[in-house]
């Protein structure tokens, strides 16, 4: 009996000792105080050198609590290095805290370095478990350091989400595509797809997403404008909504603003005719009229038909322009038409005989838009 009680006491003591270890916490754990959270990293080439310039934008804890718990202070550190990891090591060496890439929202390459090929950087970053798969790839028209500087000086409250807000505008502008890192990596390593990134134009005072940077393998071959982005989103069925500006059918030299969105998904049919790809795209959109002027009467069926006709021509033009630019000029299958054609073949060996990579630049496109103008919002007639 006595020993049984003693045994229980002994177990209690043992349990208490184990619990004591829990109270000590993790003495060697790394926490917010020990880390610098990189919000974006930029990679630039250096003239006449194999080295790169690595810029790391770091969000620092705000001293005042204010109305938001997001950080508002930031710093950009730039270092010349051989590779991304060696650059981060150099920065870690002279900074008081360790750089952490867990919250990195954007990886920015300058156009110069993107044209020289970036597969080694992309594969290295993919190998880093800290990099989020939804981190965005941005190609800067000037150096990435300049882009980071411009973003910092934009006057907006700066935070780890700064880049996420820029990208999320895609939902209502249609001027940006969601070029996440994982997608970029897989497309870069895919035989049938072209890797795409956000193309940002840096001017004197600001930074704007102005198109898509198009890659063949790992080399950037060119970029499109914002109409190209809208066309791409329409063909990929990823357009949420966008405001476009079409020529007015009622008054010469005037334009009408329309808000477009999908009526139903774009239908694409890819065929090989006389050894050349013949690609048919049927686009179905709805549009709401935004502009209201004194000449407009949107209650008339005739006027709506005219407007629809102009809208169809406009959409067909911008989409055809985009497709011919990417196929003839860049030889890049940005919409993965090759994958759509591969459905018609039973085996990859049969599909390989088509030589898709070679013949894609000789493609013919037949774009048909079937747009419906539905509403003119609050005002129908002046």
């Amino acid at each position: 009996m006595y020993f049984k009680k003693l045994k229980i006491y002994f177990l209690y003591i043992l349990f208490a000792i184990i619990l004591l270890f829990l109270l000590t916490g993790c003495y060697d754990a790394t926490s917010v105080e020990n880390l610098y959270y990189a919000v974006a990293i930029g990679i630039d080439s250096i003239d006449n050198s194999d080295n790169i310039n690595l810029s790391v934008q770091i969000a620092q804890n705000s001293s005042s609590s204010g109305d938001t718990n997001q950080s508002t202070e930031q710093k950009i550190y730039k270092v010349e290095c051989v590779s991304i990891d060696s650059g981060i090591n150099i920065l870690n060496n002279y900074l008081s805290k360790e750089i952490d890439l867990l919250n990195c929202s954007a990886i920015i390459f300058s156009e110069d370095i993107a044209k020289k090929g970036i597969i080694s950087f992309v594969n290295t970053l993919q190998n880093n478990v800290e990099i989020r798969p939804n981190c965005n790839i941005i190609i800067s028209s000037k150096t990435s350091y300049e882009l980071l500087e411009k973003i910092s000086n934009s006057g907006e409250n700066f935070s780890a989400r700064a880049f996420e807000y820029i990208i999320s505008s895609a939902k209502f502008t249609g001027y940006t595509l969601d070029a996440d890192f994982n997608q970029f990596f897989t497309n870069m390593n895919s035989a049938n797809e072209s890797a795409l990134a956000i193309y940002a134009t840096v001017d004197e005072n600001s930074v704007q997403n102005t198109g898509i940077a198009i890659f063949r393998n790992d080399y950037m071959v060119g970029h499109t404008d914002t109409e190209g982005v809208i066309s791409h989103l329409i063909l990929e069925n990823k357009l949420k909504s966008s405001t476009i500006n079409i020529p007015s059918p009622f008054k010469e030299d005037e334009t009408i603003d329309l808000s477009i969105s999908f009526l139903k998904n774009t239908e694409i049919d890819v065929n090989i005719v006389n050894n050349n790809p013949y690609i048919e795209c049927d686009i179905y959109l709805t549009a709401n009229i935004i502009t209201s002027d004194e000449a407009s009467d949107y209650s008339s069926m005739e006027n709506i038909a005219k407007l629809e006709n102009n809208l169809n021509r406009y959409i067909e033009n911008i989409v055809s322009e985009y497709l011919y630019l990417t196929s003839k000029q860049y030889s890049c299958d940005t919409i993965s038409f090759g994958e759509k054609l591969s459905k018609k073949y039973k085996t990859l060996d049969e599909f390989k005989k088509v030589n898709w990579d070679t013949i894609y630049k000789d493609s013919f496109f037949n774009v048909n838009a079937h747009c419906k103008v539905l509403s003119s919002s609050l005002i129908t007639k002046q």
Partner: protein
Amino acid sequence: MGVQLSKKECIFFICLILFNKLILSFPSLLISVTGTGTTINLIYIGIIALVFISIINKGFKNFPNSDILDISKILGGKTLKTIIGIIYMLLFFTILITFLNDFTNLLKSIYYQNSPTIFILLFFIIGILISNLIGFNSIIKMINLLFPIILISIFISFIGTIDNFTLDKLTPIFGYNYKTTFLDGLVNIFTFSFIGFYYFLQPLLKKPEDFKKINYISFFISFGLLFITICSILTLLPVASTGITINPLYILSRDVSFSVFLQRLDALFILFWILALLCYLSSLVFFINIIFSKVFNVLDIKMPSYLICMLLLACSLYPFNIGLIEFLENIVLKYAIISIVFILGPIILILGNIKFRTKSRKELNKNVF
């Protein structure tokens, strides 16, 4: 042995074996052989695996409450029993050491880059030892608890990435060519290595008459899991990039996000995967214990656990690099599983049954005359 598994426990256990293959590089191994034709190939090898399962079910019909070691004893005496026992022990031990080192490497590269590998290895090996000393029932209870969570995690991975799925990536449906899909792709049958456990399952069942049902149900659930995972990987990643990533399911889980609120769910999944692997490795040691005890007439089946765990630690101290693990998984294990589970096992069952029938006929003739 004191182990009596219910139907549900047994099914969960078999499905967990397959899940452990999914979390390692096995989907890559499958896709590397057959490319986009993996979906058709899976159905094809699934049908062949079903034939093997029906052979196993029929083979064990005349031997209730027996495992393959008992049948080997009937067929070729103690010598054959010992040989078969050693072959299966070696197979299970190779799976054990390969999986342990593969997952340790994955865990080290994801979370514990600065920690010595021995710490991670010891975490698993001590866990395996303790769970085996407590008993197989504790492992099975853990599996019961864990399996529904794992199913949910796969389901979340599937739902969370569904927006990025491109069905066009599944084409051309017959892969590289018919030869790779149907002839070279036959080696993909090694994925159903859990069939190897069916040979030892019958004596562990509460109701041995459920053996047939357990085999079929566990096969169909495991096949469903495998099919969903392979389809998800194929529709998300191009065939070329599945070959260059170490673990496609991990890449898939990294991509899971529900808006900006819920991201990086892989951190949570890894926790469940660690527990799942611990359960699987403990089960492997338990099966080695059973074979060891039967072959060498050891009374206490828990005792060999010390020996196996020490051996495991000793072997794991050898630095297993990616090349060696890939060689073990892609060459050694693949062909060892095919020859032991899909060739040797059914041959013993068929010959055992022929001997049983001849013996029964002789006894019947003796009784008649």
